[in-house]
């Protein structure tokens, strides 16, 4: 993440990576540790936030089934990450750098005593990273809402974490990862534009195309059952995102404050732009538009939070809202069923952010890059960013389709038509979201 890129101020020490020691044994920095633990908690809060966001957008019969997709990620990935996920992501290169691996990271055994060079216990770092692994597959659920089986979902996210998330995470954030070492100062992905948002967004799109549209889509109107949930979820996501972005500095210092500031500004700019578009084009600003604009702004600033200043954050927020809005219009025209716009917002916003940030990088960063590789400029960095984005898209789409085909064949992914009609809540979970409809 950005610690590696933003250390212009600490350039004399030249710390390259929080996991890579520089001589003397690191001591715990209580300020950095306290903020990292807080950030870890905030990022976990985003998952129930996402559950509410998605839960409000589906029809009454699928509320619990949809919220369970997010909560299932907390349960499945919560276990998986501690057992093998961290070892696969942050171990040293294995299989030619395709993935990481270190045996003693199994069950996190080898980090019981470790304080990282960034001054934080490795446990805190591992748990912080684990929350990112939880929310990423949960985002995919939005693309295929209202039509997948719970069993199939559990199997899918298990395989997806191991074969898509862990490799990508290793490439981008491990000190010996492919993208970390591209160009002058690596491909810029501060807090997960490629790893989290592009991978889940395009993976979701591939999955939506693979499984097909919901029964009756797009002819039957499928209205959100409760937009108050959705707004509440968007609010929780915004709050949690401060942990997501500002926590990614793995420090408690100037970089942290910079990331937090641009996160706030981009989210607000995205929200404002979206409701302005709706006011002008559709006559009425909607609460769903407000929630969508917030998300678009938050997603776009995620890769950029370490390198752009306030002006760039405003610009990215505005651009993201315009692009995501257009992508949803395009979806309606093309007719594919990305049900809750996981691709429309996370995929689109992630791509716009990862590419667009190149035009708004602060001068200090360019100076550092030029010091390493003379003449390093926008075009060269643009190539690095484009390459990272393209690889992420290809890898995520291909792997997602393979995993989906396996799950469909051996476990069953899409529910039957009658289950889809009655609703996931009753058919798969034996429950209903709202007691009001049932007098007892």
């Amino acid at each position: 993440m950005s610690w590696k890129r933003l250390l212009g101020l600490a350039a004399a020490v030249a710390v390259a990576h929080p996991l890579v020691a520089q001589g003397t044994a690191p001591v715990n920095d209580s300020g950095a540790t306290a903020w990292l633990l807080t950030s870890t908690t905030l990022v976990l809060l985003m998952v129930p936030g996402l559950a509410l966001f998605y839960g409000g957008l589906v029809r009454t019969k699928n509320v619990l089934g949809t919220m369970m997709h997010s909560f299932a990620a907390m349960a499945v990935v919560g276990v998986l990450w501690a057992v093998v996920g961290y070892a696969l992501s942050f171990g040293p290169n294995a299989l030619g750098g395709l993935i990481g691996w270190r045996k003693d990271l199994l069950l996190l055994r080898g980090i019981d005593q470790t304080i990282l060079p960034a001054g934080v216990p490795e446990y805190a770092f591992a748990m912080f990273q684990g929350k990112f692994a939880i929310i990423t597959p949960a985002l995919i659920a939005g693309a295929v809402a209202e039509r997948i089986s719970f069993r199939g979902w559990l199997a899918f996210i298990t395989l997806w974490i191991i074969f898509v998330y862990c490799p990508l995470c290793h490439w981008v954030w491990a000190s010996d990862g492919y993208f970390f070492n591209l160009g002058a100062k690596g491909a810029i992905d501060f807090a997960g534009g490629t790893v989290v948002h592009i991978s889940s967004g395009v993976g979701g799109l591939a999955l939506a195309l693979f499984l097909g549209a919901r029964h009756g889509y797009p002819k039957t109107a499928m209205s959100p059952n409760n937009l108050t949930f959705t707004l509440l979820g968007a609010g929780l996501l915004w709050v949690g995102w401060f942990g997501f972005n500002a926590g990614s500095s793995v420090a408690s210092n100037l970089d942290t404050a910079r990331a937090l500031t641009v996160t706030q500004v981009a989210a607000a700019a995205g929200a404002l732009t979206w409701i302005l578009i709706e006011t002008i084009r559709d006559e009425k600003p909607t609460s769903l538009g407000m929630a969508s604009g917030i998300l678009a702004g938050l997603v776009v600033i995620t890769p950029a939070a370490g390198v752009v200043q306030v002006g760039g954050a405003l610009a990215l927020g505005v651009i993201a809202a315009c692009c995501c809005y257009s992508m949803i219009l395009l979806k309606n025209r093309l007719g594919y069923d990305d049900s809750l716009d996981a691709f429309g917002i996370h995929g689109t916003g992630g791509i716009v952010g990862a590419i667009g940030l190149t035009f708004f990088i602060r001068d200090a960063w360019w100076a550092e890059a030029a010091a390493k590789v003379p003449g390093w400029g926008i075009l060269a960095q643009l190539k690095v960013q484009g390459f990272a984005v393209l690889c992420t898209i290809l890898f995520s789409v291909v792997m997602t389709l393979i995993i989906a085909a396996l799950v469909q064949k051996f476990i069953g992914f899409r529910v039957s038509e009658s289950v889809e009609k009655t609703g996931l809540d009753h058919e798969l979970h034996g429950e209903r979201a709202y007691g009001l409809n049932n007098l007892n």
Partner: protein
Amino acid sequence: MKLITAIIPEEKLDEVREALIDAEIERITVLRVSGHGRQQEITVQRGKKVVPNLIPKVQITIACNDAFEDITVDTIIRTARHGEGKVGDGKIFVQDLQECIRIRTGERGGQAI
């Protein structure tokens, strides 16, 4: 004029509604209701079996002129039934309707439907 009230399974609403629209019966009112007939629905909560005494259903109400009674009833039967029919498919009640008034114009009788 007739007043047709049908109690149907929740999941059949879209199918019934679409078939009615195809048959040019486009004026309906829909309610969520609970009740019990002969159907029993057992659910398990925290490992304990629970038999709810009220089961959620959907009620649709249609007022129509006498000539449309048969097509309305037939369409609902055809689309609300599960396969060969099972307990819980619902019921249809047909009543004589004394009067129908369109509030906007004050029209009365068959032309107001």
